[in-house]
């Protein structure tokens, strides 16, 4: 039994090293494939004030909406599909639903409605689904996927009627939804009036920033992902250190300290200052990609910093992590990624997931 205790649930960390200029570079896949983002943070070493360009980028992250008691059959409605799904990227995620105990729903920009429902709901719902991959012998959770853009999903087809019946008459599921929409040619706020008959509220992402002084910072070398002893730190060590920075952990400890023995990974250097900015809300991947492009351009002019870091936290209770790979909540629902952008357009990408997750792309 003790042996059993000492085992920890599996977690994965994928580290990649590439260059933005490369044709095969997969940074876009990682960013665009991660639909539901809760927090975007970036750290710029040796920077005292945010460049104006970057400031305007994070100011224009766009609004998101919270719609209360939105019945699910609204998403199956063809007016909705024609307005939102076909003319842009629509993102919706049920709010305040815990995926390890409640039913959860999400609409992906690819036009898929994903329901993660418990066993009892599934048995009553009447829609075909798949047992969750992480459910073990006794299946307690099912994933129902409805492709709203499917050619056979037209009004008055058998399939559409069945889905509509299930969600409207048989089991009128309702959720509070976080909504956001990205479209190039239609004004978002006018389109959102579609939901005006429901209780809807508009939100702006919350921006906080701070300047850190005299920060111990690990030394990185862009070609050494695994690090070199005595010369540079590995990607994983950096990942850990970033966590310490964002959590305001004191890195100046002695090995004999009673409270904490946590130290900055070695070798390290002291930064006189670093700019840290955090944006919290329901943030679209398109905006993150936009921000990343601007962070790359940060090095167009010569800078003191060797690198900048961009960290994105996903929603712990989202039914998907990347693309359509299933996401679950075991002890924690982490799905996050981090870019370290070097001044020569090299980058490191780290993607971390917890126990009930597929390997990131």
């Amino acid at each position: 039994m003790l042996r059993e205790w000492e085992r920890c649930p599996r977690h994965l960390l994928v580290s990649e090293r590439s260059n933005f200029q490369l044709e095969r570079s997969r940074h876009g896949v990682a960013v665009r494939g991660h639909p539901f983002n809760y927090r975007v943070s970036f750290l710029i070493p040796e920077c005292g004030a945010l460049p104006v360009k970057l400031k305007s980028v994070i100011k224009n992250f766009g609004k998101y909406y919270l719609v209360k008691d939105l019945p699910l059959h609204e998403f199956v409605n063809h007016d909705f599909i024609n307005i939102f799904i076909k003319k842009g990227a629509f993102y919706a995620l049920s709010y305040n639903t815990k995926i390890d105990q409640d039913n959860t729903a999400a609409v992906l920009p690819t036009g898929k409605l994903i329901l993660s429902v418990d066993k009892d709901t599934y048995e009553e719902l009447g829609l075909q689904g798949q047992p969750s991959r992480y459910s073990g012998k006794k299946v307690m959770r099912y994933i129902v996927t409805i492709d709203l853009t499917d050619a056979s999903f037209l009004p008055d087809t058998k399939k559409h009627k069945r889905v509509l019946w299930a969600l409207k008459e048989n089991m009128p599921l309702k959720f509070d939804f976080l909504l956001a929409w990205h479209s190039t040619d239609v004004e978002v706020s006018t389109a959102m009036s579609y939901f005006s008959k429901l209780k809807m509220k508009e939100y702006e992402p919350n921006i906080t920033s701070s300047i850190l002084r005299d920060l111990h910072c690990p030394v990185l070398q862009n070609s050494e992902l695994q690090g070199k002893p005595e010369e540079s730190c590995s990607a994983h060590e950096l990942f850990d250190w970033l966590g310490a920075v964002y959590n305001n952990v004191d890195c100046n400890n002695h090995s004999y300290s009673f409270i904490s023995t946590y130290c900055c990974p070695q070798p390290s250097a002291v930064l006189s200052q670093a700019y840290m900015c955090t944006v919290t809300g329901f943030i679209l991947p398109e905006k993150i990609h936009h921000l990343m492009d601007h962070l790359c351009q940060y090095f167009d002019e010569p800078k003191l910093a060797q690198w900048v870091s961009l960290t994105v936290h996903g929603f712990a209770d989202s039914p998907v992590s990347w693309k359509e790979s299933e996401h679950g909540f075991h002890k924690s629902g982490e799905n996050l990624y981090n870019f370290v952008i070097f001044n020569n357009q090299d980058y490191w990408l780290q993607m971390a997931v917890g126990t009930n997750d597929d390997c990131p792309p």
Partner: protein
Amino acid sequence: MIKVSKEKSHEVATYERQVQKNVSEYHYMKIRLEFQEKGVHLNAPHFKQLILSALRDLHGEVGAALPFDILTFDEKSFSAILRISNRGLVKLWSALTLLGSYQNHKCAFRVLQTSPFLLALAGNSRELALD
């Protein structure tokens, strides 16, 4: 720990991918100590002492010898981030759960978040409070 690594060397040598399984040796826990009544004061050493005594009560001297770190401690909200080796996570968690009092004040630990990645504790989407 098991490490799975694969390296794809394409025609471009600058691309590298590495998949690491269970790479983190530590688990991080975000916890909060709650008291029934107000006005209890506690600083970081006392806080650590409290957790140590909880470990000793449940797991004996072996449990009390478990090394863990208090990375942050907020004296106002009694919230803290702990670092514990993977092997000790269950022991520490169970000891925290079963602790019931501090100097005759009733109290309880709430485990807010755990993760093998410290960075994951920086963003907990369950804390997103919109009215």
